[in-house]
Protein backbone atom coordinates (compact mmCIF):
# COMPACT_ATOMS: atom_id res chain seq x y z
CA UNK A 1 0.00 0.00 0.00
CA UNK A 2 1.12 3.54 -0.72
CA UNK A 3 2.98 4.86 2.34
CA UNK A 4 0.94 8.10 2.25
CA UNK A 5 -2.43 6.40 2.04
CA UNK A 6 -1.47 3.98 4.81
CA UNK A 7 -1.39 6.66 7.49
CA UNK A 8 -3.80 9.60 7.99
CA UNK A 9 -1.18 12.02 9.39
CA UNK A 10 1.12 11.46 6.41
CA UNK A 11 -1.74 11.97 3.95
CA UNK A 12 -2.68 15.26 5.67
CA UNK A 13 0.89 16.57 5.42
CA UNK A 14 1.09 15.45 1.80
CA UNK A 15 -2.15 17.24 0.79
CA UNK A 16 -1.16 20.38 2.73
CA UNK A 17 2.01 20.61 0.68
CA UNK A 18 -0.07 20.30 -2.50
CA UNK A 19 -2.32 23.09 -1.23
CA UNK A 20 0.78 25.26 -0.85
CA UNK A 21 1.89 24.32 -4.37
CA UNK A 22 -1.55 25.38 -5.66
CA UNK A 23 -1.23 28.72 -3.87
CA UNK A 24 2.23 29.39 -5.29
CA UNK A 25 1.10 28.48 -8.77
CA UNK A 26 -1.86 30.87 -8.50
CA UNK A 27 0.42 33.72 -7.53
CA UNK A 28 2.67 32.85 -10.49
CA UNK A 29 -0.13 33.19 -13.05
CA UNK A 30 -1.89 36.16 -11.44
CA UNK A 31 -1.12 39.40 -13.35
CA UNK A 32 -2.16 42.92 -12.59
CA UNK A 33 -4.93 43.76 -15.01
CA UNK A 34 -5.47 40.11 -15.92
CA UNK A 35 -6.39 37.47 -13.31
CA UNK A 36 -6.41 38.36 -9.66
CA UNK A 37 -4.74 36.01 -7.22
CA UNK A 38 -8.17 35.05 -5.84
CA UNK A 39 -9.51 34.10 -9.26
CA UNK A 40 -6.39 32.08 -10.05
CA UNK A 41 -6.75 30.27 -6.71
CA UNK A 42 -10.29 29.15 -7.54
CA UNK A 43 -9.19 27.93 -10.96
CA UNK A 44 -5.98 26.17 -9.91
CA UNK A 45 -6.19 24.93 -6.29
CA UNK A 46 -8.89 22.22 -6.74
CA UNK A 47 -7.15 20.84 -9.83
CA UNK A 48 -3.80 20.85 -8.02
CA UNK A 49 -5.27 18.88 -5.12
CA UNK A 50 -6.69 16.28 -7.53
CA UNK A 51 -3.28 16.16 -9.21
CA UNK A 52 -1.78 15.47 -5.79
CA UNK A 53 -3.80 12.25 -5.71
CA UNK A 54 -2.74 11.46 -9.29
CA UNK A 55 0.91 11.84 -8.21
CA UNK A 56 0.43 9.13 -5.58
CA UNK A 57 0.60 6.81 -8.59
CA UNK A 58 4.34 7.50 -8.76
CA UNK A 59 4.58 4.93 -5.95
CA UNK A 60 3.93 2.23 -8.57
CA UNK A 61 6.63 3.75 -10.77
CA UNK A 62 9.05 3.55 -7.83
CA UNK A 63 8.11 -0.06 -7.13
CA UNK A 64 8.52 -1.05 -10.75
CA UNK A 65 11.84 0.79 -11.06
CA UNK A 66 13.97 0.09 -7.99
CA UNK A 67 16.88 2.56 -7.92
CA UNK A 68 19.62 0.01 -7.41
CA UNK A 69 18.49 -2.57 -9.94
CA UNK A 70 17.89 -0.38 -12.99
CA UNK A 71 20.12 1.54 -15.38
CA UNK A 72 19.87 5.33 -15.61
CA UNK A 73 18.25 5.21 -19.03
CA UNK A 74 15.39 2.94 -18.01
CA UNK A 75 14.88 5.11 -14.93
CA UNK A 76 14.66 8.17 -17.17
CA UNK A 77 12.23 6.50 -19.61
CA UNK A 78 9.93 5.20 -16.89
CA UNK A 79 9.76 8.36 -14.84
CA UNK A 80 9.76 10.66 -17.87
CA UNK A 81 6.99 8.71 -19.59
CA UNK A 82 4.85 8.57 -16.47
CA UNK A 83 5.26 12.26 -15.74
CA UNK A 84 4.37 13.32 -19.32
CA UNK A 85 1.21 11.20 -19.26
CA UNK A 86 0.27 12.46 -15.80
CA UNK A 87 0.91 16.07 -16.71
CA UNK A 88 -1.17 15.72 -19.88
CA UNK A 89 -4.00 14.46 -17.75
CA UNK A 90 -3.57 17.36 -15.37
CA UNK A 91 -3.78 19.86 -18.21
CA UNK A 92 -6.95 18.28 -19.61
CA UNK A 93 -8.47 18.17 -16.15
CA UNK A 94 -7.66 21.87 -15.63
CA UNK A 95 -9.17 22.84 -18.95
CA UNK A 96 -12.36 20.94 -18.15
CA UNK A 97 -12.60 22.62 -14.75
CA UNK A 98 -11.99 26.07 -16.33
CA UNK A 99 -14.74 25.48 -18.89
CA UNK A 100 -17.10 24.53 -16.08
CA UNK A 101 -16.16 27.67 -14.14
CA UNK A 102 -16.71 29.89 -17.19
CA UNK A 103 -20.44 29.65 -16.42
CA UNK A 104 -19.82 31.76 -13.30
CA UNK A 105 -19.84 35.48 -14.29
CA UNK A 106 -16.70 36.50 -12.35
CA UNK A 107 -14.68 33.61 -13.83
CA UNK A 108 -15.79 33.65 -17.45
CA UNK A 109 -12.21 34.18 -18.59
CA UNK A 110 -10.92 31.02 -16.89
CA UNK A 111 -10.40 29.02 -20.13
CA UNK A 112 -8.29 31.90 -21.38
CA UNK A 113 -5.87 31.39 -18.52
CA UNK A 114 -5.27 27.85 -19.65
CA UNK A 115 -4.91 28.92 -23.27
CA UNK A 116 -2.30 31.48 -22.26
CA UNK A 117 -0.20 29.49 -19.75
CA UNK A 118 -0.56 26.02 -21.29
CA UNK A 119 3.16 25.40 -21.75
CA UNK A 120 4.06 26.72 -18.32
CA UNK A 121 1.41 24.58 -16.58
CA UNK A 122 2.41 21.44 -18.50
CA UNK A 123 6.07 21.91 -17.55
CA UNK A 124 5.13 22.51 -13.92
CA UNK A 125 2.99 19.36 -14.03
CA UNK A 126 5.93 17.28 -15.26
CA UNK A 127 8.26 18.73 -12.63
CA UNK A 128 5.74 18.17 -9.84
CA UNK A 129 5.35 14.54 -10.87
CA UNK A 130 9.14 14.05 -10.89
CA UNK A 131 9.30 15.70 -7.47
CA UNK A 132 6.57 13.38 -6.14
CA UNK A 133 8.54 10.40 -7.47
CA UNK A 134 11.65 11.56 -5.64
CA UNK A 135 9.65 11.94 -2.42
CA UNK A 136 8.27 8.44 -2.81
CA UNK A 137 11.74 7.00 -3.39
CA UNK A 138 12.91 8.66 -0.19
CA UNK A 139 9.98 7.38 1.85
CA UNK A 140 10.45 3.84 0.50
CA UNK A 141 14.18 3.92 1.31
CA UNK A 142 13.49 5.12 4.85
CA UNK A 143 10.91 2.41 5.37
CA UNK A 144 13.23 -0.28 4.01
CA UNK A 145 16.06 0.72 6.30
CA UNK A 146 13.69 0.71 9.27
CA UNK A 147 12.49 -2.79 8.36
CA UNK A 148 16.10 -3.96 8.01
CA UNK A 149 16.88 -2.52 11.43
CA UNK A 150 13.88 -4.32 12.90
CA UNK A 151 14.91 -7.60 11.26
CA UNK A 152 18.45 -7.30 12.58
CA UNK A 153 17.06 -6.66 16.05
CA UNK A 154 14.76 -9.67 15.75
CA UNK A 155 17.66 -11.89 14.70
CA UNK A 156 19.67 -10.69 17.66
CA UNK A 157 16.78 -11.50 19.98
CA UNK A 158 16.42 -14.95 18.43
CA UNK A 159 20.10 -15.70 18.93
CA UNK A 160 19.91 -14.59 22.54
CA UNK A 161 16.79 -16.68 23.07
CA UNK A 162 18.43 -19.76 21.58
CA UNK A 163 21.30 -19.32 24.01
CA UNK A 164 18.99 -18.92 26.96
CA UNK A 165 17.07 -22.02 25.94
CA UNK A 166 20.21 -24.13 25.86
CA UNK A 167 21.17 -22.87 29.27
CA UNK A 168 17.76 -23.60 30.67
CA UNK A 169 17.71 -27.06 29.10
CA UNK A 170 21.19 -27.61 30.47
CA UNK A 171 20.22 -29.31 33.67
CA UNK A 172 17.65 -31.83 32.59
CA UNK A 173 15.18 -32.51 35.41
CA UNK A 174 15.08 -36.15 34.39
CA UNK A 175 18.82 -36.40 34.99
CA UNK A 176 18.56 -34.70 38.37
CA UNK A 177 15.71 -36.87 39.68
CA UNK A 178 17.47 -40.03 38.55
CA UNK A 179 20.67 -38.94 40.28
CA UNK A 180 18.80 -38.32 43.50
CA UNK A 181 17.20 -41.73 43.23
CA UNK A 182 20.62 -43.34 42.73
CA UNK A 183 21.93 -41.51 45.79
CA UNK A 184 18.92 -42.71 47.78
CA UNK A 185 19.68 -46.28 46.67
CA UNK A 186 23.38 -46.02 47.54
CA UNK A 187 22.64 -44.60 50.99
CA UNK A 188 21.42 -48.04 52.04
CA UNK A 189 23.98 -50.22 50.33
CA UNK A 190 27.14 -48.14 49.99
CA UNK A 191 27.15 -44.89 51.96
CA UNK A 192 30.64 -43.94 50.78
CA UNK A 193 29.53 -44.19 47.16
CA UNK A 194 26.42 -42.14 48.00
CA UNK A 195 28.61 -39.40 49.41
CA UNK A 196 30.89 -39.51 46.36
CA UNK A 197 27.85 -39.16 44.08
CA UNK A 198 26.59 -36.16 46.10
CA UNK A 199 29.96 -34.48 45.73
CA UNK A 200 30.13 -35.20 41.99
CA UNK A 201 26.63 -33.88 41.44
CA UNK A 202 27.31 -30.81 43.54
CA UNK A 203 30.46 -30.05 41.60
CA UNK A 204 28.70 -30.62 38.29
CA UNK A 205 25.84 -28.26 39.18
CA UNK A 206 28.17 -25.58 40.49
CA UNK A 207 30.38 -25.72 37.41
CA UNK A 208 27.47 -25.61 34.95
CA UNK A 209 26.00 -22.57 36.66
CA UNK A 210 29.39 -20.85 36.70
CA UNK A 211 30.24 -21.67 33.09
CA UNK A 212 26.73 -20.81 31.93
CA UNK A 213 27.28 -17.22 33.03
CA UNK A 214 30.44 -16.90 30.93
CA UNK A 215 30.76 -16.23 27.23
CA UNK A 216 33.95 -18.05 26.28
CA UNK A 217 35.90 -20.48 28.39
CA UNK A 218 39.05 -22.54 27.89
CA UNK A 219 38.19 -25.86 26.27
CA UNK A 220 39.81 -27.68 29.20
CA UNK A 221 37.02 -26.46 31.51
CA UNK A 222 34.31 -27.52 29.09
CA UNK A 223 35.95 -30.91 28.78
CA UNK A 224 36.19 -31.29 32.55
CA UNK A 225 32.47 -30.57 32.90
CA UNK A 226 31.55 -33.15 30.26
CA UNK A 227 33.76 -35.73 31.95
CA UNK A 228 32.18 -35.04 35.32
CA UNK A 229 28.78 -35.54 33.76
CA UNK A 230 29.87 -38.87 32.30
CA UNK A 231 31.26 -39.93 35.67
CA UNK A 232 27.87 -39.33 37.29
CA UNK A 233 26.09 -41.25 34.56
CA UNK A 234 28.55 -44.11 35.09
CA UNK A 235 27.31 -44.42 38.66
CA UNK A 236 23.75 -44.74 37.34
CA UNK A 237 24.41 -47.02 34.40
CA UNK A 238 27.23 -49.05 35.92
CA UNK A 239 29.11 -51.27 33.46
CA UNK A 240 26.61 -50.40 30.71
CA UNK A 241 28.41 -47.10 30.10
CA UNK A 242 32.07 -46.94 29.11
CA UNK A 243 34.03 -43.89 28.11
CA UNK A 244 36.76 -43.64 25.53
CA UNK A 245 38.71 -40.40 25.65
CA UNK A 246 41.08 -39.34 22.88
CA UNK A 247 42.21 -35.81 23.64
CA UNK A 248 45.32 -34.29 22.09
CA UNK A 249 47.69 -32.32 24.32
CA UNK A 250 47.36 -28.57 24.11
CA UNK A 251 43.75 -28.36 22.92
CA UNK A 252 42.61 -27.25 26.38
CA UNK A 253 43.91 -23.73 25.77
CA UNK A 254 41.50 -22.95 22.93
CA UNK A 255 38.69 -20.56 23.90
CA UNK A 256 35.24 -21.97 23.14
CA UNK A 257 31.62 -20.91 23.84
CA UNK A 258 30.56 -22.23 27.24
CA UNK A 259 28.37 -25.35 27.46
CA UNK A 260 28.65 -26.33 23.82
CA UNK A 261 30.07 -29.81 24.35
CA UNK A 262 27.90 -30.65 27.34
CA UNK A 263 24.58 -31.10 25.43
CA UNK A 264 26.32 -33.35 22.88
CA UNK A 265 27.66 -35.65 25.58
CA UNK A 266 24.27 -35.66 27.27
CA UNK A 267 22.61 -36.63 23.97
CA UNK A 268 25.10 -39.47 23.52
CA UNK A 269 24.00 -40.93 26.83
CA UNK A 270 20.26 -40.21 26.90
CA UNK A 271 19.51 -40.91 23.23
CA UNK A 272 22.30 -43.39 22.60
CA UNK A 273 23.75 -45.63 25.26
CA UNK A 274 20.69 -45.57 27.55
CA UNK A 275 18.68 -47.29 24.78
CA UNK A 276 21.09 -50.21 24.58
CA UNK A 277 20.35 -53.26 26.68
CA UNK A 278 24.05 -54.16 26.85
CA UNK A 279 25.19 -50.54 26.99
CA UNK A 280 27.94 -48.98 24.92
CA UNK A 281 30.80 -46.56 24.69
CA UNK A 282 30.79 -42.77 24.46
CA UNK A 283 33.87 -41.64 22.60
CA UNK A 284 35.17 -38.13 23.16
CA UNK A 285 37.74 -36.78 20.69
CA UNK A 286 39.49 -33.43 20.56
CA UNK A 287 42.39 -32.46 18.33
CA UNK A 288 44.00 -29.46 16.75
CA UNK A 289 43.40 -29.21 13.04
CA UNK A 290 44.75 -26.57 10.69
CA UNK A 291 43.68 -23.27 12.17
CA UNK A 292 41.03 -24.79 14.39
CA UNK A 293 39.79 -27.17 17.02
CA UNK A 294 37.89 -30.33 16.12
CA UNK A 295 35.78 -31.94 18.80
CA UNK A 296 33.78 -35.10 18.23
CA UNK A 297 31.34 -37.08 20.33
CA UNK A 298 30.52 -40.56 19.12
CA UNK A 299 28.30 -43.24 20.56
CA UNK A 300 26.81 -46.58 19.71
CA UNK A 301 23.08 -46.57 19.31
CA UNK A 302 20.20 -48.96 18.93
CA UNK A 303 19.69 -49.83 15.25
CA UNK A 304 15.98 -50.44 15.94
CA UNK A 305 15.55 -47.17 17.80
CA UNK A 306 12.23 -45.51 17.14
CA UNK A 307 12.78 -42.22 15.37
CA UNK A 308 11.80 -39.50 17.77
CA UNK A 309 11.57 -35.97 16.47
CA UNK A 310 12.68 -34.61 19.83
CA UNK A 311 16.25 -35.81 19.49
CA UNK A 312 17.09 -32.94 17.17
CA UNK A 313 16.42 -30.10 19.62
CA UNK A 314 19.77 -30.20 21.44
CA UNK A 315 21.70 -30.33 18.18
CA UNK A 316 19.68 -27.49 16.71
CA UNK A 317 20.49 -25.32 19.71
CA UNK A 318 24.21 -26.03 19.35
CA UNK A 319 23.97 -25.23 15.66
CA UNK A 320 22.18 -21.94 16.32
CA UNK A 321 24.73 -20.91 18.91
CA UNK A 322 27.61 -21.71 16.56
CA UNK A 323 25.97 -19.62 13.83
CA UNK A 324 25.39 -16.73 16.25
CA UNK A 325 28.98 -16.79 17.54
CA UNK A 326 31.05 -17.68 14.49
CA UNK A 327 28.84 -17.12 11.44
CA UNK A 328 30.10 -19.43 8.69
CA UNK A 329 33.48 -20.08 10.30
CA UNK A 330 32.34 -22.96 12.49
CA UNK A 331 30.69 -26.16 11.40
CA UNK A 332 28.70 -28.96 12.96
CA UNK A 333 28.55 -32.27 11.14
CA UNK A 334 26.35 -35.20 12.03
CA UNK A 335 27.24 -38.71 10.84
CA UNK A 336 24.49 -41.17 11.51
CA UNK A 337 24.42 -44.84 10.65
CA UNK A 338 22.29 -47.67 11.99
CA UNK A 339 24.53 -48.37 14.96
CA UNK A 340 26.60 -45.24 15.33
CA UNK A 341 25.98 -41.58 15.94
CA UNK A 342 28.76 -39.05 15.59
CA UNK A 343 28.72 -35.29 15.95
CA UNK A 344 31.75 -33.30 14.94
CA UNK A 345 32.33 -29.65 15.78
CA UNK A 346 34.91 -27.53 14.03
CA UNK A 347 35.73 -24.20 15.61
CA UNK A 348 38.29 -21.61 14.60
CA UNK A 349 41.21 -21.60 17.01
CA UNK A 350 41.04 -18.74 19.50
CA UNK A 351 43.69 -17.96 22.08
CA UNK A 352 43.02 -16.66 25.54
Amino acid at each position, binding site marked *: MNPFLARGDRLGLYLASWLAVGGLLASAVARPGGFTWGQALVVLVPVTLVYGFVCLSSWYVCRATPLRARSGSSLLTNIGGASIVASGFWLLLGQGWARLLSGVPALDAAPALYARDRVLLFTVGVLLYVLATAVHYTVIAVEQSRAAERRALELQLLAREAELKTLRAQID*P*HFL*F*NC*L*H*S*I*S*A*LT*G*SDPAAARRMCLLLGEFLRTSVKLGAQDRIPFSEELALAERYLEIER*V*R*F*GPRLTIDRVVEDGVGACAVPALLLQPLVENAVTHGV*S*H*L*VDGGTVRLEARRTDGGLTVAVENRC*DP*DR*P*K*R*PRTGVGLQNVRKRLAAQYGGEAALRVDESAERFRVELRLPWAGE
Partner: protein
Amino acid sequence: MSEQTTKIRAVIVDDEELARSVLREFLAGRPDVEVVAECANGFEAVRAVTELKPDLLFLDIQMPKLDGFEVLELIGSEVAVIFVTAYDEFALRAFEVHAVDYLLKPFGAERLAESLDRAKSRLGRRASLPVKALVSTARPKEGPAQRVLVRDGPRVHVVPVDKLDYVQAQDDYVCLHSEGKAFLKEQTLAELETTLDPGRFVRIHRSYLLNVERLARVEPYGKDSRVAILADGTRLPVSRSGYARLSELL
Protein backbone atom coordinates in the same frame (compact mmCIF):
# COMPACT_ATOMS: atom_id res chain seq x y z
CA MET B 1 -9.08 -57.43 61.35
CA SER B 2 -7.45 -58.68 58.19
CA GLU B 3 -6.69 -62.32 57.94
CA GLN B 4 -3.28 -63.57 57.04
CA THR B 5 -3.44 -63.59 53.26
CA THR B 6 -0.98 -64.98 50.77
CA LYS B 7 1.92 -62.75 49.83
CA ILE B 8 1.75 -60.41 46.87
CA ARG B 9 4.15 -61.71 44.24
CA ALA B 10 5.90 -58.73 42.70
CA VAL B 11 8.30 -58.18 39.79
CA ILE B 12 10.65 -55.18 39.59
CA VAL B 13 11.34 -53.84 36.10
CA ASP B 14 14.02 -51.14 35.76
CA ASP B 15 17.11 -50.89 33.58
CA GLU B 16 19.17 -49.27 36.35
CA GLU B 17 20.58 -51.63 38.94
CA LEU B 18 20.55 -48.94 41.64
CA ALA B 19 16.87 -48.19 41.02
CA ARG B 20 16.06 -51.89 41.37
CA SER B 21 18.10 -52.17 44.54
CA VAL B 22 16.24 -49.39 46.33
CA LEU B 23 12.88 -51.09 45.65
CA ARG B 24 14.33 -54.42 46.69
CA GLU B 25 15.54 -52.88 49.93
CA PHE B 26 12.17 -51.26 50.74
CA LEU B 27 10.19 -54.38 49.85
CA ALA B 28 12.46 -56.61 51.95
CA GLY B 29 10.92 -54.89 54.97
CA ARG B 30 7.39 -55.85 53.92
CA PRO B 31 6.18 -59.27 55.07
CA ASP B 32 3.22 -59.11 52.68
CA VAL B 33 5.28 -58.77 49.49
CA GLU B 34 7.63 -61.21 47.83
CA VAL B 35 9.87 -60.11 44.97
CA VAL B 36 9.83 -63.05 42.55
CA ALA B 37 11.93 -61.51 39.76
CA GLU B 38 13.96 -58.47 38.75
CA CYS B 39 14.10 -57.46 35.11
CA ALA B 40 16.53 -55.07 33.43
CA ASN B 41 14.48 -54.58 30.26
CA GLY B 42 11.07 -55.00 28.68
CA PHE B 43 11.80 -58.36 27.07
CA GLU B 44 12.67 -59.86 30.44
CA ALA B 45 9.54 -58.27 31.88
CA VAL B 46 7.24 -59.96 29.34
CA ARG B 47 9.00 -63.27 29.93
CA ALA B 48 8.66 -62.93 33.73
CA VAL B 49 4.97 -62.05 33.46
CA THR B 50 4.31 -65.07 31.24
CA GLU B 51 6.31 -67.58 33.24
CA LEU B 52 5.78 -66.39 36.82
CA LYS B 53 2.28 -64.90 36.62
CA PRO B 54 3.03 -62.28 39.28
CA ASP B 55 0.34 -60.16 40.97
CA LEU B 56 2.13 -56.86 40.73
CA LEU B 57 4.64 -55.17 38.45
CA PHE B 58 6.82 -52.19 39.38
CA LEU B 59 7.35 -50.82 35.90
CA ASP B 60 9.91 -48.16 34.94
CA ILE B 61 8.94 -46.10 31.91
CA GLN B 62 12.26 -45.16 30.30
CA MET B 63 13.97 -48.37 29.32
CA PRO B 64 15.96 -49.57 26.32
CA LYS B 65 14.25 -51.46 23.46
CA LEU B 66 10.80 -51.63 25.01
CA ASP B 67 9.62 -48.79 27.20
CA GLY B 68 7.17 -49.25 30.05
CA PHE B 69 4.12 -48.46 27.95
CA GLU B 70 5.13 -50.94 25.27
CA VAL B 71 5.49 -53.61 27.94
CA LEU B 72 2.04 -52.68 29.19
CA GLU B 73 0.56 -52.98 25.69
CA LEU B 74 2.09 -56.43 25.35
CA ILE B 75 1.01 -57.84 28.70
CA GLY B 76 -2.42 -56.20 28.63
CA SER B 77 -4.19 -55.99 31.95
CA GLU B 78 -3.28 -59.37 33.39
CA VAL B 79 -1.13 -57.87 36.15
CA ALA B 80 -1.56 -54.91 38.51
CA VAL B 81 1.00 -52.22 37.68
CA ILE B 82 2.68 -49.47 39.68
CA PHE B 83 4.54 -47.18 37.31
CA VAL B 84 7.88 -45.76 38.34
CA THR B 85 9.40 -42.74 36.62
CA ALA B 86 11.72 -39.85 37.30
CA TYR B 87 10.09 -37.26 35.10
CA ASP B 88 7.88 -37.56 32.07
CA GLU B 89 5.22 -34.92 31.70
CA PHE B 90 3.13 -36.88 29.20
CA ALA B 91 3.14 -40.01 31.34
CA LEU B 92 2.26 -38.05 34.49
CA ARG B 93 -0.68 -36.40 32.76
CA ALA B 94 -1.91 -39.80 31.59
CA PHE B 95 -1.65 -41.22 35.12
CA GLU B 96 -3.64 -38.32 36.53
CA VAL B 97 -6.33 -38.59 33.84
CA HIS B 98 -6.80 -42.32 34.31
CA ALA B 99 -6.22 -42.38 38.08
CA VAL B 100 -3.32 -44.81 37.75
CA ASP B 101 -0.89 -45.22 40.62
CA TYR B 102 2.71 -44.18 40.12
CA LEU B 103 5.90 -43.54 42.05
CA LEU B 104 8.16 -40.58 41.32
CA LYS B 105 11.88 -41.10 41.75
CA PRO B 106 13.21 -40.50 44.31
CA PHE B 107 10.55 -41.94 46.62
CA GLY B 108 10.63 -43.17 50.20
CA ALA B 109 9.29 -46.23 51.99
CA GLU B 110 6.15 -44.38 53.19
CA ARG B 111 5.12 -43.38 49.68
CA LEU B 112 5.74 -46.94 48.53
CA ALA B 113 3.55 -48.27 51.37
CA GLU B 114 0.64 -46.05 50.22
CA SER B 115 0.99 -47.36 46.68
CA LEU B 116 1.08 -50.94 47.90
CA ASP B 117 -2.11 -50.43 49.94
CA ARG B 118 -3.88 -49.08 46.89
CA ALA B 119 -2.58 -51.94 44.77
CA LYS B 120 -3.84 -54.47 47.32
CA SER B 121 -7.33 -53.05 47.26
CA ARG B 122 -7.25 -53.08 43.45
CA LEU B 123 -6.15 -56.72 43.50
CA GLY B 124 -9.04 -57.52 45.85
CA ARG B 125 -11.52 -55.85 43.50
CA ARG B 126 -9.87 -57.36 40.42
CA ALA B 127 -9.89 -53.89 38.82
CA SER B 128 -7.86 -53.76 35.65
CA LEU B 129 -6.04 -50.94 33.90
CA PRO B 130 -7.57 -49.10 30.94
CA VAL B 131 -4.51 -50.07 28.89
CA LYS B 132 -5.40 -48.62 25.47
CA ALA B 133 -6.73 -45.33 26.78
CA LEU B 134 -3.75 -44.93 29.09
CA VAL B 135 -1.17 -45.62 26.40
CA SER B 136 -2.77 -43.26 23.90
CA THR B 137 -2.84 -40.39 26.43
CA ALA B 138 0.70 -41.05 27.57
CA ARG B 139 2.24 -40.89 24.11
CA PRO B 140 2.33 -37.65 22.23
CA LYS B 141 1.24 -38.35 18.67
CA GLU B 142 4.51 -38.99 16.88
CA GLY B 143 3.36 -40.01 13.42
CA PRO B 144 2.97 -43.52 12.05
CA ALA B 145 4.49 -46.49 13.88
CA GLN B 146 8.06 -47.50 12.98
CA ARG B 147 7.75 -51.04 14.27
CA VAL B 148 5.14 -53.54 15.38
CA LEU B 149 5.60 -55.53 18.59
CA VAL B 150 4.35 -59.09 18.70
CA ARG B 151 4.15 -61.20 21.81
CA ASP B 152 4.76 -64.87 21.32
CA GLY B 153 4.22 -66.37 24.76
CA PRO B 154 7.24 -65.29 26.82
CA ARG B 155 9.03 -63.87 23.75
CA VAL B 156 8.67 -60.52 22.02
CA HIS B 157 9.31 -60.02 18.32
CA VAL B 158 10.05 -56.56 17.00
CA VAL B 159 8.92 -56.27 13.39
CA PRO B 160 10.23 -53.09 11.74
CA VAL B 161 7.59 -51.53 9.47
CA ASP B 162 10.19 -51.31 6.67
CA LYS B 163 10.37 -55.10 6.64
CA LEU B 164 6.64 -55.68 6.80
CA ASP B 165 5.33 -57.09 3.48
CA TYR B 166 1.64 -57.53 4.14
CA VAL B 167 -0.81 -58.26 6.92
CA GLN B 168 -3.64 -60.75 6.85
CA ALA B 169 -6.69 -60.63 9.11
CA GLN B 170 -7.54 -63.87 10.97
CA ASP B 171 -10.58 -63.46 13.20
CA ASP B 172 -9.41 -61.42 16.21
CA TYR B 173 -5.79 -61.70 15.16
CA VAL B 174 -3.58 -60.29 12.46
CA CYS B 175 -0.88 -62.29 10.75
CA LEU B 176 2.14 -60.12 9.94
CA HIS B 177 4.28 -61.32 7.03
CA SER B 178 7.87 -60.13 7.08
CA GLU B 179 10.85 -61.56 5.22
CA GLY B 180 9.21 -64.94 4.72
CA LYS B 181 8.21 -65.25 8.39
CA ALA B 182 4.73 -64.91 9.84
CA PHE B 183 3.85 -63.45 13.25
CA LEU B 184 0.45 -63.68 14.90
CA LYS B 185 -0.68 -60.70 16.97
CA GLU B 186 -3.87 -60.20 18.91
CA GLN B 187 -5.22 -57.09 17.24
CA THR B 188 -7.81 -56.32 14.56
CA LEU B 189 -6.66 -55.33 11.10
CA ALA B 190 -8.54 -52.02 11.35
CA GLU B 191 -6.74 -51.20 14.61
CA LEU B 192 -3.34 -51.98 13.16
CA GLU B 193 -4.12 -50.00 10.00
CA THR B 194 -4.68 -46.79 12.00
CA THR B 195 -1.17 -47.00 13.47
CA LEU B 196 0.62 -47.45 10.11
CA ASP B 197 1.55 -44.91 7.44
CA PRO B 198 -1.51 -44.59 5.13
CA GLY B 199 0.79 -43.52 2.29
CA ARG B 200 2.45 -46.91 2.39
CA PHE B 201 -0.07 -49.46 3.64
CA VAL B 202 -3.26 -49.95 1.68
CA ARG B 203 -6.27 -52.06 2.54
CA ILE B 204 -6.51 -53.94 -0.77
CA HIS B 205 -9.12 -56.34 0.59
CA ARG B 206 -11.29 -56.75 3.67
CA SER B 207 -8.67 -59.17 5.03
CA TYR B 208 -5.44 -57.80 3.55
CA LEU B 209 -3.28 -54.78 4.21
CA LEU B 210 -0.43 -54.38 1.72
CA ASN B 211 2.89 -52.53 1.86
CA VAL B 212 2.73 -50.93 -1.62
CA GLU B 213 6.52 -50.98 -1.88
CA ARG B 214 6.28 -54.76 -2.26
CA LEU B 215 3.74 -54.65 -5.10
CA ALA B 216 5.03 -55.85 -8.49
CA ARG B 217 1.79 -55.69 -10.52
CA VAL B 218 -1.97 -56.15 -10.44
CA GLU B 219 -3.64 -58.66 -12.78
CA PRO B 220 -7.30 -59.29 -13.54
CA TYR B 221 -8.69 -62.43 -11.94
CA GLY B 222 -12.07 -63.79 -12.88
CA LYS B 223 -14.55 -61.36 -14.32
CA ASP B 224 -14.93 -58.93 -11.48
CA SER B 225 -11.85 -59.11 -9.29
CA ARG B 226 -8.11 -58.68 -9.41
CA VAL B 227 -5.04 -60.19 -7.84
CA ALA B 228 -1.96 -58.37 -6.55
CA ILE B 229 1.36 -60.01 -7.26
CA LEU B 230 4.18 -59.07 -4.90
CA ALA B 231 7.87 -58.87 -5.73
CA ASP B 232 8.43 -62.30 -4.14
CA GLY B 233 5.62 -63.88 -6.15
CA THR B 234 2.98 -63.91 -3.39
CA ARG B 235 -0.56 -63.48 -4.76
CA LEU B 236 -3.14 -61.56 -2.74
CA PRO B 237 -6.80 -60.90 -3.60
CA VAL B 238 -7.78 -57.31 -4.41
CA SER B 239 -11.39 -56.27 -3.93
CA ARG B 240 -13.09 -53.66 -6.08
CA SER B 241 -12.90 -50.94 -3.40
CA GLY B 242 -9.39 -52.11 -2.54
CA TYR B 243 -8.38 -51.58 -6.16
CA ALA B 244 -9.87 -48.08 -6.06
CA ARG B 245 -7.81 -47.25 -2.93
CA LEU B 246 -4.71 -48.73 -4.52
CA SER B 247 -5.07 -46.76 -7.78
CA GLU B 248 -5.72 -43.60 -5.82
CA LEU B 249 -2.45 -44.03 -3.93
CA LEU B 250 -0.36 -44.97 -6.96
